[in-house]
């Protein structure tokens, strides 16, 4: 090493960044329980799983009921309509947004289920959104059905009167 090396090191600009690109590719396994739910959606049906111990119906079926630790896997078909248990109004645009804001995202307790699913409600003004609204699935056309929750385009008001709070109070 030459004598002037320390000086060179002292005057060189500090290294402030090292580019280190990482790309990892995965093929995810949905698993038996989620697969049963996804396959049913391709068939225009909504199928959950009942826990054999506490009898709760989960959507999707689960590899284990978090209260009982046993698979919640007894197949139960639930309705494609239900009650909005909570909601929010999205007013901020973002890249993956399905619609231009504002629009309404909701948790829906489908009739026959004990766990709400998350989806969107269309056809109402954001200021009309409320807990207890009764809503109905609007499915995609038959040739667009697939093993995905996107088989349901959105939910719309069903025309039924709002559900009483007590009917969904234990499912919030």
């Amino acid at each position, binding site marked *: 090493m030459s004598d002037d090396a320390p000086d060179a090191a002292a005057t060189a600009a500090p290294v402030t960044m090292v580019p*280190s690109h*990482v790309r990892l*590719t995965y093929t*995810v*396994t949905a698993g038996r329980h989620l697969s049963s739910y996804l396959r049913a959606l391709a068939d225009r049906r909504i199928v959950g799983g009942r826990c054999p111990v506490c009898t709760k119906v989960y959507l999707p079926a689960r590899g*284990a009921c978090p209260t*009982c*630790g046993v*698979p919640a896997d007894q197949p139960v078909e639930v309705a494609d309509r239900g009650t909005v248990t909570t909601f929010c109004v999205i007013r901020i645009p973002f890249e993956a947004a399905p619609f231009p804001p504002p629009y309404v995202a909701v948790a829906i307790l489908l009739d026959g289920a004990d766990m709400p699913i998350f989806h969107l409600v269309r056809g109402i003004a954001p200021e009309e959104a409320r807990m207890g609204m009764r809503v109905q699935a609007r499915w995609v056309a038959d040739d667009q059905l697939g093993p995905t929750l996107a088989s349901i385009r959105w939910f719309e008001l069903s025309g039924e009167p709002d559900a009483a709070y007590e009917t969904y109070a234990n499912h919030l």
Partner: protein
Amino acid sequence: MRDVAIIAFAQLPAVRRDTEREEVELVQPVVTAALAQAGLDRRDVGFTISGSCDYLLGRPFSFVAALDAVAPWPPIAESHVEMDGAWALYEAWARLQCGDVDTALIYAYGKSSLGELPDVLVQQLDPYYLAPLGADAISLAALQARALLDSGRADERRLAAVAARSRRAAAANPCAQRRSRREVDELLAEPYLVAPLRKHDCPPISDGACAVVLAAGDVARRLVPRPAWIRGIDHRIEPHQLGHRDLTRSPSTAEAAARAGAGPDAAPFDLVELHAPFSHQELILRDALGLPTDDGTADGIDDGDGGDGPAINPSGGALAANPMMVAGLTRLGEAAARLMAGDGRRALAHATSGPCLQQNLVCVLETDGGAP
């Protein structure tokens, strides 16, 4: 120190690619089986801890998704290590030393098949000097194997003998993945994968899960007839930078063994379960543990053809099945299960983590000798 024992062990058969089960579906059956062996209800478990790695599954907080299997509602006392489950067992053992809880459940799961395992393992290296080179686990192990061969303390035939013995043992283990018997000469006729390693010197890529139950003192004695007592347990780590280590030696294993009561003057073991994912690593570990690498038979190669000394990896070891984050805890579980079944009274179990045996855990297990 409080007496703590392994009282149950359950595992899934390791497979190359489990396309049926996601995390919770891997964990639920082994947790259920281990608790049933221990005669415990989920509600009776004092402390729960898991070992897994989100990089393997490609999603953050995958261990939280797996928690459903242990029924975490109402809330339970729970912890997690982003490491092999053997280190989760260590934390559980330390937790039981506090004295306020008597039982612990440990589980580990890994699905290496979801990603490209060599690429994933690069991410455990330092991000400046090694990771950008894409130094994959097999190439690093091959560097270590080359150093060992060059030291004159091993040759390729001895590596093949380790692999042949692993396969012979694995044939009797229904949870092992690589179970076909192969003879040493056959193995040596195979081409190199990454010289000097052949395919049989390297572990299979495996999906799997296992669970262990620990219990303290009289609770352990009440629950099972023959608890596998943890007489000593310790783990040590070496520098992250591979260039700072003598890759042909494992001083961290020797140090952990000395502190766990498996040092040079320790009483002999009936069986030993070593977590050596690569054949040459078994020889390095045996050297560090003072276990002869030569079983005293005529050919001088320990290939299970008799001789003195403890049975090494009667399960087949990590060469036969290597679910990441699981294979280390499996060594402790396999050793304990054999003692609980009456196949010996004293066992040494070892787990490793990181590239080229960077971290090592040693556990000494003993039974009181009651009827199995």
